[in-house]
């Protein structure tokens, strides 16, 4: 779930951007390391980035909204490790803002934290955990997709709650408010995406 352009107050926009910088820098450092070791990985990384973008541009059936990030970035995280996804995800978020008006420039930092940092790490962690537990790959990846989605949405709600605390009940009230309202759109989205991911995994394994 992308926070739209201009929705966050200036101080918050700046603060989130600063918070995102170390992650993106770490991603950039990791990228340099990968491409020095395996020059051909450059094109694969770009393909993964392009793929993540296209996933986010695909409309999910019968639900308003589009496929969110974790499937693409989560997949990239599995292939290339989650830290480099902070960078790839940031680039993809920038292009999404420019081409699709999903998210924005001033909200880029906040969106990077929720979608290019938290999402991939959660997805990656779940995937690792499930393979350590010996769960089937399809289950692990579907879980990673659904929970990665939900984690992103919880972070976004928290970001909004911080920016607009409820006059009566403060941060917690505002969080409940945003989380509750966006649950209407985000929970079905996450479930649909999980279902799609299962089909994807079955089809990929069947090949």
């Amino acid at each position, binding site marked *: 779930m*992308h926070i*739209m*352009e*201009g*929705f966050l107050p200036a101080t918050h926009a700046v603060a989130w951007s600063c918070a995102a910088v170390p992650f993106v820098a770490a991603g*950039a450092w990791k*990228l*340099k390391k990968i*491409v020095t070791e395996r*020059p*051909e990985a*450059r*094109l*694969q*990384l*770009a*393909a*993964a*980035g*392009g*793929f993540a*973008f*296209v*996933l986010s541009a695909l409309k999910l*059936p*019968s639900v*308003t*909204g589009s*496929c969110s990030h974790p*499937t693409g970035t989560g997949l990239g995280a599995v292939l290339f490790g989650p830290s480099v996804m902070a*960078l*790839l995800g940031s*680039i993809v978020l*920038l*292009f999404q803002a*420019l*081409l*699709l*008006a999903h998210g*924005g*420039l*001033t909200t880029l930092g906040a969106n990077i934290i929720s979608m290019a940092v938290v999402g991939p790490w959660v997805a990656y962690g779940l995937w690792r955990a499930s393979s350590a537990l010996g769960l089937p790959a399809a289950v692990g990846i579907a879980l990673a997709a659904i929970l990665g989605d939900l984690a992103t949405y919880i972070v976004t709600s928290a970001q*909004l709650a911080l920016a*607009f605390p*409820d*006059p009566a*009940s403060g941060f917690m*009230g*505002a969080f409940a*408010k945003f989380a509750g*309202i966006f649950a209407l759109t985000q929970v079905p989205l996450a479930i*649909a995406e999980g*279902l*799609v991911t299962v*089909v*994807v*995994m079955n*089809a*990929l394994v069947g*090949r």
Partner: protein
Amino acid sequence: MLALGLLVLVLAVPPWPGAVAVLVIAWTAALAGARVTWRDWLRLVAAPLGFALTGAFALAIEIGPDGLALARDGGAAAAAVVIRAAAALSCLLLLAVTTPAPDLVRGARRLGLSPEIAEMALLIWRFLFMLLESATAIRHAQDARLGWHGFRRSIRSLGLLVALLLPRALDRAQRLECGLAARGFDGSLPMLSPRQPVSLRFIAATLGLQAAVLGVSLWWS
């Protein structure tokens, strides 16, 4: 340039009248200056509407001791945020329709972005159009065979689409590597970047306009 400056202004000044002024300027610049058709422009503006409305709804209510209620001043606060967001969005879109993203990346590179990142961004740009084209073609083919009629079929079709697209993306990367190898690819991607002429008059006019918006909003409040 104009769009970025306006974007900063939107966040810095109170929504009335600064954001409204910016909104008007951005729309005028896009529709009259950059000659974007109304149809394309409205389609772009409509994209984040869902977020704006649900977000504003959340702002307009409050959780009080007796449960949910309309917040005091909630309506006004929500309206202010929506107006500011709409103005900011218009600036973003103005930037998007006037400046191709690769130009922005090259600009950022001149300002000190590391070449690896710039290269990666430009490569992703190229890949995303290739893959978008494939995805659209696959979607049309599925549609022709009734793959998108009904929820379950749509989920299945979308899953098949993604499953088809992923190996394709990696295959494309491999073939591109082969094609670039023939041109001496050794891991780096050197290229000559085009230089953009910068119009001093345009910059002066932009700064003037932005100062005017700032002045008016400060004076008003």
